[in-house]
């Protein structure tokens, strides 16, 4: 069977939006479909892309910067958002909904429109503004956009649900796993397996047999998955 995978609609939308220069985009949906990868690589990322992984314990230092000891003195280190501002680059903010209240407020300010956004360097007093080309791609695993704060949604005019892995990611898998990875990404509950699981299985089975590889990656589902692979081998 020849393996050709058409680009799913969600990924066509992502490419259209980013190539058109839309600079605030939310990608949401099941984990392991390549949302972060897309944020880091698709559209205009010539000036680089800076990743922020949000969690409850993060502070504004990760966003704007912090003082760091260097020998006998302290030096200022820019945060990811300020770096991206100054270079006209992209910020990829993963799981922004997990950020604490004050960090979220700061990010809302940083991700505001270029006309409204500004930040004063605490050391130099220099006023930073986002340079042309600055863009933000936010990713989250929430399934319902209503779970996100309204202020956040307002700053991101485009939200695309990513329910399929990107074909280029699928093509890195062995042919017999590609369709399974495609369909499993958006399956329900215990039927869902991420691209990471497929990649790990694909890698592992090159050095151990399929049974052990499946047991290590898919746990108690391994027997059923091996049966499916047997049936898939028919054509």
């Amino acid at each position, binding site marked *: 069977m020849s393996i050709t995978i058409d680009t799913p609609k969600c990924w066509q939308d992502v490419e259209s939006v980013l190539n058109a220069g839309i600079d605030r985009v939310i990608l949401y949906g099941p984990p392991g479909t390549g949302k972060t990868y897309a944020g880091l690589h698709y559209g205009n990322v010539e000036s680089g892309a800076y990743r922020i992984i949000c969690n409850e314990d993060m502070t504004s230092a990760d966003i704007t910067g912090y003082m760091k000891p260097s020998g006998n003195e302290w030096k200022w280190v820019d945060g990811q958002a300020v770096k991206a501002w100054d270079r006209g680059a992209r910020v990829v903010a993963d799981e922004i909904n997990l950020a604490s209240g004050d960090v979220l407020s700061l990010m809302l300010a940083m991700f505001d429109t270029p006309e409204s956004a500004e930040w004063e360097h605490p050391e130099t007093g220099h006023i930073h503004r986002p340079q042309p080309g600055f863009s933000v791609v936010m990713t989250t695993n929430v399934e319902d956009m209503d779970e996100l704060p309204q202020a956040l949604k307002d700053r991101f005019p485009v939200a695309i649900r990513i329910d399929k892995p990107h074909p280029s990611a699928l093509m890195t898998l062995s042919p017999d796993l*590609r369709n399974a990875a495609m369909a499993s990404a958006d*399956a329900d509950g215990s*039927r869902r397996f991420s691209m990471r699981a497929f990649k790990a299985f694909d890698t592992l089975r090159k050095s151990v047999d399929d049974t052990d590889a499946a047991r290590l990656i898919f746990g108690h589902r391994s027997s059923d998955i091996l049966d499916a692979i047997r049936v898939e081998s028919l054509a």
Partner: protein
Amino acid sequence: MSDRTAFPEWLSRDDTATESWVVSSGTPQRGDAWTDITNRRMRVPGGDDEVSRVIRAHEMVHAKVSPIRGVPTDLAAEVDVSPEALVVAEEFRVNMLASQAGFDMDELRDGSEKRAGELMGKNTAWNDAVRAVCAMAGTKAADDFLRGVASQNKEMADNLRVVHRELKKRWKKALRDHDVDKLSSTEPARFHASVPAGFMRFTVPIAKYLDNVSSCDNEDPYASDPGDSPIPDGDALKGGEVGRFAKLVERTLPKPKHVDGRFGRKRKPSAIGKHPRRIDRMLTDPDKRIFDKRSKSKGGVILIDQSGSMSLDDDDIWSIIEHAPGCVIIGYAHETGSEGVPNVWVLADRGRVVDNIPYGNSGNGVDGPAVRFAASKRRKGEPFVWVCDGIVTDGLRDSQYTNLDLECIQLVRKHGIHMVPDVSGAVDALKRVASGSRLPIQYTGTLVFRATDVS
């Protein structure tokens, strides 16, 4: 509690995109599991046992290779096979493919098979049994089923074993001629894009074989029925060399002419006479009609084979009609390989006669159904004359088959038919009837020898 499941979303097809599925948990009972490819829903047993596992495999193979919308009825009509045969032939393909994928399909049984075999054997339900054997072919369930049939009907079981062996042989041959990839291919079939190529390649020919070895078509009231048609013999079953008559399609003709006359004699009870032939009526008949009264009958049935081999012209047919006033006279001939082309017509119906005789088609093809049709027009005790050279053929190729000969012999016996080979024979027979003689059962052509063989 075990929560084993199937993963049909891991399967790819050439004729549809891979999507997520909803899989529910059921039991390993026959008939409880199913697959709905269109809506991507499946029900499979969730047990950790081997039976549950092979049922899951069976359903996954359906999801992998079967037609998306099930067995299309329009396809069945187009390729001239019954939908029932297509369904069980697909079960056979699925089981064989699952076996190829490494599953032990011998485990695919739930214990009900032997009992089902006993019931079918007891009722001589040949067609149902053929389909059951096909659905279970290649698994131990088929052996259980055949044992059940054998306990009630050894002859039928022996013949079913021939069918079973033939099915397995055909699978092996298909594997040699093609390969597993081609037999499980879901590329759209070349001339029937609604079904996968693998289905057309294997399932359809198997369904045709099943139809050939089956002996009845329930939708056609004049088609072969098991009572008339003996179970095909072993040689025929092996090759699938079993002919089938075409479906009867009646052409209604206007009958503007009217003829009158009497034909044949029949005896009726009478209270007056010389020789008491019905002495039992002394006790049973209030009118004590113990004598016979002879009266001329108006009717009878004449069935005329108008196929090419009979070389009958209009004058011949008119000659028969004139010698059989008041009879039902029916002509028949089938256009070989056709469907829907009229192949039976009533030329005269108890005094009303056509003014133009239609040309016959080229072949016989519909002999058995025509005999049944004619028999349905006959009244009790009336003579039945069949003008036919004794060469009865199938509807598809106009070829002779043993099973069709045997079927016609059974019909001749059952209905007391007097066969004559040509017009002169028919006229002679009609004259004998007119003089009051009874016509004996008589065969013509090939049927003479066949009848001798089976008597």
